[in-house]
């Protein structure tokens, strides 16, 4: 397979340039290093290539089936067909960063519309045009807050359960700074947010809605305390959940991040996903990444351009707050198409169904013996942690034989169970039945 076009004139052009053979073009390269022996195949025709990938895809499919309740940061929501249709248009996929705005209004207006959707859902004023994913947005938010509020001290309090993966990525991003992260849990230590003692030397405080266990805390008092204490408030929130709860902007958040995978993007083994990043007005010039902005053309007509690029690395170089460039443009487009096709009503229907399904499970499971649900009376979004009297490993094996994957094990005795709008009640019932039957077997 080779797409590099016309070869008929190759020799003509080569000699027109005064060369004899193609390797003359590489005269700057030490001759002994030229054209190394590279033991890769010599290429496949397209038909053979597709066969190869069909085999690989089949190998996956044969191992994965049944009803699945996996989440933990990546969720299977229904993706309307129109999302794939629009996002596979060559005019979007084969364009690049809209440096020449006059011929890139498709990309630019899409990004501006994406920013507007996210701004309305989150209540935040300034949204960037995307970040790599939720976790990197999260980590860069911490870097940004640490830099912006360093004079208060290097501590950042994380008041929610977050996943091990998020912790690892946060550690990686902060490893060469003096920031210190402390982990607490609103549900465990400070049930009543009004009583929380916030340390003096604290630059920022972070809450996740929902947290890793699917729990949504009432943080209104906590948010007020942050404001009083001059601590930056960061909310990491699921954009679907935010369509039905008080948004971060209204809670007084200074920084918002989120994982946009749930907005029409497949799980795809972890990527590409979509990091959502937003800040309040006072942090506008600190936000990393590209942003689309409105302007006018030479005739006064509305149009869009990349805005505020003086923050960025290609201008500020080592003084930039991040090295991030253009990143997930097509995923922001997918999210926009998803949000616009679903509309307000569709997004809220999905969010409510995720809450409903989680509580349907809670109400079925809490009656059973042998398991316990983490905070069953809290508001749960999509997910719950179930702690079992028995080994989760054994449960998983049994479940597999029943064609069910009940969740993701988080330790030897607990499992994170996730449900989205794609599950019908019959499927939820089968999961409840599974726990019941297995417990009976165990006993």
């Amino acid at each position, binding site marked *: 397979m080779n797409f590099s076009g016309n070869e008929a004139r190759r020799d003509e052009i080569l000699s027109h340039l005064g060369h004899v053979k193609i390797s003359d073009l590489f005269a700057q390269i030490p001759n002994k290093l030229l054209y190394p022996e590279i033991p890769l195949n010599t290429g496949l025709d397209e038909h053979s290539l597709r066969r190869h990938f069909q085999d690989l895809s089949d190998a996956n499919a044969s191992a994965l089936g049944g009803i699945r309740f996996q989440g933990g940061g990546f969720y299977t929501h229904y993706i309307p067909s129109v999302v794939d249709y629009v996002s596979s248009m060559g005019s979007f996929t084969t364009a690049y960063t809209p440096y020449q705005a006059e011929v890139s209004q498709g990309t630019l207006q899409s990004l501006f519309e994406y920013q507007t959707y996210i701004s*309305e859902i989150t209540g935040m004023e300034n949204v960037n045009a995307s970040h790599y994913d939720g976790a990197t947005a999260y980590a860069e938010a911490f870097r940004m807050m640490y830099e912006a509020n360093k004079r208060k001290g290097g501590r950042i309090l994380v008041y929610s359960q977050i996943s091990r993966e998020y912790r690892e990525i946060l550690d990686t991003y902060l490893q060469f700074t003096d920031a210190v992260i402390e982990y607490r849990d609103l549900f465990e230590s400070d049930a009543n947010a009004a009583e929380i003692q916030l340390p003096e030397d604290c630059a920022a405080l972070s809450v996740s809605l929902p947290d890793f266990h699917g729990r949504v805390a009432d943080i209104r008092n906590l948010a007020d305390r942050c404001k009083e204490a001059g601590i930056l408030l960061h909310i990491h929130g699921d954009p679907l959940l935010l369509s039905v709860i008080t948004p971060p902007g209204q809670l007084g958040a200074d920084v918002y991040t989120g994982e946009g995978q749930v907005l029409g993007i497949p799980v795809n083994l972890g990527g590409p996903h979509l990091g959502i990043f937003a800040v309040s007005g006072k942090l506008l010039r600190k936000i990393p990444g590209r942003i689309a902005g409105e302007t006018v053309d030479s005739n006064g007509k509305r149009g869009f351009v990349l805005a505020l690029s003086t923050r960025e690395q290609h201008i500020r170089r080592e003084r930039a707050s991040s090295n991030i460039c253009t990143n997930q443009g097509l995923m922001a487009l997918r999210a926009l198409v998803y949000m616009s096709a679903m509309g307000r009503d569709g997004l809220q229907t999905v969010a409510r169904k995720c809450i409903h399904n989680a509580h349907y499970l809670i109400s079925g499971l809490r009656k059973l013996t042998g398991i316990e649900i983490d905070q069953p009376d809290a508001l749960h979004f999509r997910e719950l942690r179930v702690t079992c009297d028995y080994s989760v490993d054994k449960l998983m094996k049994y479940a597999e034989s029943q064609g069910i994957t009940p969740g993701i094990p988080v330790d030897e005795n607990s499992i994170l169970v996730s449900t989205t709008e794609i599950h019908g009640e019959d499927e939820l019932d089968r999961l409840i039945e599974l726990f019941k039957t297995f417990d009976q077997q165990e006993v």
Partner: protein
Amino acid sequence: GHIPLLWENIDTSRKNQYIKPVENERMPEAFKAMARKGAGGNTPSLRLPQHNELYIVRHFTRLAASNFSIDSNMYPLGSCTMKYNPRVNDAVASAAGFASVHPADAEKAQGSMEVLFNLQHQLAQLSGFDAVALSPAAGAQGELTGVMMIRKYHESRGDFGRTTVLVPDTAHGTNPATVAMCGMNVRTIPSNEAGQVDLAELDGLLDESIAGMMLTNPNTLGIFEKDVVEICSRVHKAGGLMYGDGANFNAIAGIVRPAALGFDVMHFNLHKTFGTPHGGGGPGAGPVGCTWELQEFLPGPLIRKDKDRYAAYTPGKSIGKLKTGFGNFGILLRSYAYITGHGIDGITTNSEMAVLKANYLRNLLAKYLPAHHGTPSMHEFVASNPLKNGVSTMDIAKMLLDRGFHAPTVYFPLTVKEALMIEPTESESFEEIEAFAQALMEILDTAEKDPEAAHRAPETTRLGRLDEVAANRKPVLHHKL
């Protein structure tokens, strides 16, 4: 014509047809405390429009029509490598067996694991490195990975004083920004008249504080650094490591291996060299390759083969994770298809043709727009706007838009005055390259005679020239609802 924003033609009534609402909804008491105003009813606390699907399709069809893309015409945006994105790669990537795999099932999905394992191998073979980590999400994250590895390497040896990184003045801005993110200092190397790293200048900058040096090769002037082997050797002697910025690997893949030149660690820009769609600005992927001395520092997950099964693991001294899951798998998959389909023969031919075509275009333009610095160029070349009558480089760029071509990269590298950075790529036929050269020459003629016409460009696009200054003066970053 004008394309209204999605809010400007609100159709408030359509019901969502994608998901049926729950009957007998079960909302917990705790919901009330945090409920969004109006979320229970239909009051517009969430001011999002409700369109029918036809409106959505039309909206995006119109937006698509106002986008320039590789599919519309030649897109010689230097350093971005706007080459053909084979449709077969999109087709294989959308197979159901891949897109729905959850990271928790990774090791069950042996097909996906095989893709990753094979791609690690292919990138290692093409670059000469001993190990490759695929998870970095983009070139910039790959850089971050690589420079973190360099810092960690020194620290693991108890060598805490090495916190300076050398960066040539022609480098992309990401290089110095990355160094800063790793808490280290940048020392800039001025380039010499030939547009290359000056060995004497280099010697003057090398000392015990040097953690390493970042070098793009071919560099951003489109020139292969002729002294690269010597540079690597001197940096090594000073105790530093060599970071390769792989942005321009597409010129030399199959021709020479960066590891053989002396680099220790390098990132790949898969969307450039290995033909994944640029997506209007991402997603890309930025795998990192390194020598065996550094491989213990790579971020996980890496894939190994145990007997007949593929398994994921993380090296012992890893700098840590940078990205959830297995990186941008959807992009990695496409690059694996690209490399497997092309094979070593196709990859090598692509590099050769990319270089041949850049030199041909350079030659065609030699009188009108002479390239800076010596010959031959690699996959791209840089010239300065030759006009002295007030016509700016940006004017020339906009005039190209009126001719149906995308503009080259402009005003970069910073070391070249009024720079035009031109990369035709191997995908463009000689005929298309000739047409572009012809258009550019005519534009320069016109602009010389009639500078006002140049300032007015573009005139054939839906919108005239957009005011970027106004956009920054009082930023409007979302529609006011």
